[in-house]
């Protein structure tokens, strides 16, 4: 699992709005960086890393919720959740296939066909999950989620400037 990137300026004396902006900017950048090649089922850690990054972004959005315009924040949080759900659809069969493959490798030839059938079913689920994820990723890109998250972060910083 990829380690979370440190958030520059996040310290006890930081202003809440500035901290919110920095946290969302860094966590959002991590999500989109982990999108690289995430549909490749030969490297299942990519989905895992992106899913973890999405959870971290959701946590940042929830912790700092009061810093953001309510309606926009709610909408973006829902979009990030939909992305996380799509990653979960892919991740579940990924993990099951990995574990069952380990079990299959420890079995004798006579016992393998049963488990191979199960793995095949899970592979079909994995491909279904990939289709869902691919559609969500294309939607995320087309509707400019990354830019809108950056805009949300800027709004927290601007609000902080006005109230200070």
């Amino acid at each position: 699992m990829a380690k979370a990137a440190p958030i520059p300026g996040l310290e006890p004396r930081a202003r809440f709005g500035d901290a919110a902006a920095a946290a969302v900017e860094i966590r959002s950048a991590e999500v989109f960086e982990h999108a690289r090649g995430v549909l490749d089922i030969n490297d299942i850690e990519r989905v895992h890393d992106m899913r973890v990054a999405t959870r971290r972004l959701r946590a940042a959005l929830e912790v700092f919720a009061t810093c953001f315009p309510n309606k926009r924040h709610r909408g973006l949080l829902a979009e990030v959740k939909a992305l996380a759900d799509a990653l979960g659809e892919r991740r579940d069969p990924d993990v099951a296939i990995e574990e069952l493959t380990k079990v299959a490798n420890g079995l004798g030839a006579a016992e393998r066909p049963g488990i191979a059938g199960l793995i095949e079913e899970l592979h079909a689920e994995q491909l279904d999950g990939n289709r869902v994820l691919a559609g969500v990723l294309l939607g995320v890109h087309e509707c400019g989620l990354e830019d809108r998250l950056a805009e949300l972060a800027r709004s927290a910083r601007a609000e902080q400037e006005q109230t200070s």
Partner: protein
Amino acid sequence: MPAVPAAARHPRSAKLAPVASVHACIDIGSNTTRLLVAGLDGDGLRELVAERAFTRIGASCQTDGHIPAETVAATAAVVAGQLHSALAAGAGEVVAVATAAVRDAPNRDELVGAVERDTGLALRVLSGQEEARLSFIGATRVLAEEIPDPVAVVDVGGGSTELAIGTPGGEPAFAASLAVGSSVLARAHLHTDPPAPAELHAARSAASEAFEGLAPPAAAGALAVGGTATSLHRIAGRDLDLASLQRALELLGSAPSSEVATRVKLDPERVRLLPGGILVLAAASGCLGLTPAIAHGGLREGVLLELLDRRASEGA
């Protein structure tokens, strides 16, 4: 060489039957970015959807081979659109590959990054040897009828030309990639429309030079695949002997590309690139001492068949 049955050359016309799984390959070449969605089962591959967009990476490259930022963005957008089409057709796995123009670009990582980030696809930049091998597999495994053994497969692309020789359906025993293609010759030599005789002469010399020193093993027959070959079918017939290639060159040199394109019902961009591709094919024929026959299948089919083999071995 025996004639190739029409159904084998055009799998779309094959009788429809259920397929075990549907997968797709997106191939970013020097001239075009192409999508193939195919049904895969134990017997092989059936084309379901094919798309093509002229992304012109080779033509847009700066003199040092850098791909401009706008071409990077436009290509990533085309790949995203083709991914949409693949998903709509029910593709489970979508494999993306890139060839010569990307392979040779000093800033290829920018294009790889843009595609991977915007679409989630992992983009595999093929080496020349891999490209030759996969084109060979794709060309020889989709044909239904008997193919000469050993067979040579010539894949004339925009930025490179691949040549592979081996037993049909197997791994090639010989594979080579040459830094010459339709876009390379067009950029370097063919500047007027239609190309002037002196330009064609210079391009012909460059094509011949690219094959100098190459000593492929003997083959019993040859297949030509790729955009140049399939487009040539319309104007030169199926067997690409030197006389038909020369006639095609004369036709292409008879009027500006837009006029010829209307006459032969081809994209004007393809017509502009064809003279270079024909000269490379002629040079390849000379090198092999064979007349290539146009064949369906090639790189994208090879990528998908390799995927099919890999999944089969994982399930074994």
